[in-house]
């Protein structure tokens, strides 16, 4: 107990002073947390807050953000060639840098990362592991991560998960994300190691193998993306499986839109009370966001700053307006190839000014991610249809066409929608068109139907990053 206090003090001081944390110290705190839970059944009161949980007081959040920004900017100006140029061009006084001066620094785009990756590497930290983005927005960006980062992130993540009782010794976590997402794979495996849990990093293998892993090999946790979850649900349904066939207690997804219809089907089939829909992006790790029960997305304030900038003006989005998430991870949580004001192009809606009133009310929130900014359909005037609306509308069709395959464009205020035949199975074209239009809020929809063999060409998903094995021939899933 005494040494636990010393370790907590060391960690707290590291966070307050903005010095590199000792991952081994955090690892020992995980052991302490596990011993506490083994003895008492649960952590003590306010364990999350004591271990650097999210700040909930707005003034503290502001103070924390100012200190984090100033610290991070000063370091990048000295160590990152890209940001040294950028800060010099902006002519800001980094000794007094805070939220007020933030807008003087242009946002960083994925294009910047792809075109001049070497300039983002800090000169004082050697790279240890390269990871790649695995989204569907074109050419992947590659990021180098330091050994410190790859030790710290799993330790912080595991500590938080243990205190929330999301990860326990004896758990088996099955990870079905692309194996090229090496950071996510590494963090998952290391978090399990630190907790005494097992990890099965499978990748995007044929879904039959994933279902076997979940059913026969006793996975208790599943980490995947919604499109692959859809493949798992479809495969398990085809096999006539139900909740009794699985031992899962948590399913976490991220990286894509999760529709209510798919979430409900997955809950019922896999026998879990909730599909947790979290948010993270490779370029801005370790800053994440998590969903509350009211469907808001609450953004981490401890490890970084998340802004919501208006898509048109680049100014902070007004309540009700759409904006893009711009994320700045703070030093010392990111040190090898950091980004500053990284424009994710992930669109969310700014919530009304009054407090959300949910269980995470003190933590800044936006709506759920509505899709990529470049995929919004502008119907003229203020009318906008988001990818989330389209996915939800299509995946709610009676044929359960998961993951939704579609192509949508806007022309003359109308939506030109292409669907595969399987998506409207059991419905006539007119009825399908009516249902989709109603779900989208009533815009005019022109529907075109193509053969199912063209489905995967219409809209790419993360589950399309197939990793073949010699065991199972791949079957086409998704209408």
């Amino acid at each position, binding site marked *: 107990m*005494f040494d636990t206090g010393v370790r907590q003090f060391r960690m707290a001081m590291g966070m307050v002073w903005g010095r590199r944390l000792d991952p081994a110290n955090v690892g020992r705190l995980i052991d302490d947390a596990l011993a506490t839970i083994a003895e008492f059944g649960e952590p*003590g*009161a306010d364990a999350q807050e004591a271990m650097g949980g999210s700040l909930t007081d707005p003034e503290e959040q502001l103070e924390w953000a100012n200190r984090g920004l100033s610290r991070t900017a000063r370091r990048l100006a000295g160590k990152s060639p890209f940001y040294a140029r950028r800060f010099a061009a902006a002519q800001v006084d980094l000794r007094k840098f805070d939220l007020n001066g933030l807008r003087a620094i242009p946002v960083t785009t994925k294009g910047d990362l792809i075109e001049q990756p070497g300039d983002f590497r800090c000169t004082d930290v050697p790279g240890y592991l390269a990871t790649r983005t695995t989204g569907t927005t074109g050419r992947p960006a590659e990021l180098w991560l330091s050994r410190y980062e790859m030790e710290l992130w799993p330790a912080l993540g595991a500590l938080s998960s243990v205190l929330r009782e999301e990860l326990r010794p004896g758990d088996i976590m099955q990870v079905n994300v692309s194996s090229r997402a090496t950071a996510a794979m590494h963090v998952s495996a290391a978090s399990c190691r630190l907790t005494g849990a097992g990890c099965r990093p499978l990748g995007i293998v044929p879904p039959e193998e994933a279902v076997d892993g979940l059913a026969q090999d006793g996975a208790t946790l599943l980490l995947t993306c919604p499109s692959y979850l859809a493949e798992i649900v479809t495969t398990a349904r085809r096999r006539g499986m139900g909740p009794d066939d699985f031992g899962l207690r948590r399913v976490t997804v991220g990286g894509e839109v999760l529709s209510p219809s798919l979430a409900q089907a997955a809950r019922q089939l896999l026998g879990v009370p909730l599909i947790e829909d979290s948010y993270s992006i490779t370029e801005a790790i370790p800053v994440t966001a998590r969903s509350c029960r009211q469907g808001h997305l609450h953004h981490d304030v401890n490890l970084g700053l998340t802004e919501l900038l208006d898509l048109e003006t680049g100014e902070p989005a007004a309540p009700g307006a759409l904006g893009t998430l711009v994320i700045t991870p703070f030093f010392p949580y990111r040190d090898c190839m950091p980004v500053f004001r990284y424009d994710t192009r992930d669109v969310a809606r700014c919530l009304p000014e009054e407090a959300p*009133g949910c269980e995470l009310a003190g933590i800044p929130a936006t709506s759920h991610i509505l899709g990529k900014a470049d995929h919004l359909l502008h119907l003229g005037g203020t009318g906008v249809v988001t990818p989330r609306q389209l996915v939800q509308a299509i995946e709610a069709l009676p044929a359960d066409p998961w993951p939704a395959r579609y192509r949508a464009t806007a022309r003359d205020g109308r939506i030109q929608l292409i669907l595969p035949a399987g998506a409207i199975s059991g419905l006539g074209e007119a009825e399908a068109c009516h249902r989709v239009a109603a779900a989208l809020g009533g815009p005019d929809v022109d529907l075109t139907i193509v053969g199912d063999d063209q489905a995967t060409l219409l809209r790419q998903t993360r589950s399309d990053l197939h990793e073949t094995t010699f065991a199972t021939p791949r079957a086409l899933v998704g209408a």
Partner: protein
Amino acid sequence: MPKTTEPISLFQQTATEFGVILVSVILVTLGTLYYFRRVRMERPPIGTFNGRDIVILLAFIVALPFLYGYLPLWLITCLLILTFTSSLYLGYKPVLGTARTWVGIGLLIGLNVWTSHHLMGTTAGWQLWWAELSVLVGLGAISVANLYVQGGMKLQYVAWLALALAVYDIIFATVLPLTDELVAGYLAHPLDPLMGMRFGIDNYGIGLGDLLVYSLFFVASYKAYGAKAARIAFGLILLFGALVTAFIPFVFNFLDQELDLLIPSQALFGPAAFLCYLWMKRRWGRERTMAEYLASADAQVRDTAPATLAPAPEPEPASA
């Protein structure tokens, strides 16, 4: 052998000492169990009592006699005030609330300091001082024992602590006879860590450390294996901690150079407690955790933590 100059016989002294120890041990151990069953102390967000804490505790205990020897009296008193204040605050805040706990601590410590300086001229004054000190020390022992056991201290650790204290007691009573000097030298000073009473010209007492070990062993046995183990532990405490400890001077007819009867009671109790623990472990297996204890029928806890209300539901929209 020194010549006895006491107005009462050694047997009378022994019997009186036995009575004082017996009353003290019974009050404190049963008080500790009562508290353990009724009150849940606040515990830190992360952390449970472990083997390293035992080592740290022992290091502190070993250093204590030297600190007493070298530090000025006023500083020792300050350290004792800090120690008692902390232990009483942690233990009785969940029961009395913050304000009443501070008032109680202030009264107990203030009265003790005052009586230490003003009431030592008469037997009645001494008795008042002892009575008040005993309340203070007894409450402190109950609080600290609960702090440790409710903090996750296992019977295994208590047994090892008792065994280590046996070695400590033997060394500091024979090879480095500091304990005797400290007890005699610090007697009548404020917050003397003893529980006892004065009869005639003699003071009879038992040390806070001894009371703490007995309480720990008793309550940790109860937590680990239930009432049956607690009864065995209680019998062991009465036998070795009270009876044997009190009657050893009489049986072996010894007094020290200052006519004091200072018995290294842990030298007797420690090995017995350790063997008892081994026997319990062999008979009943793994100890219960605090969570298992709380889930068992043995736990009749009146939760004294402030109740928290569930958040009110969101109001329905006023208009359709």
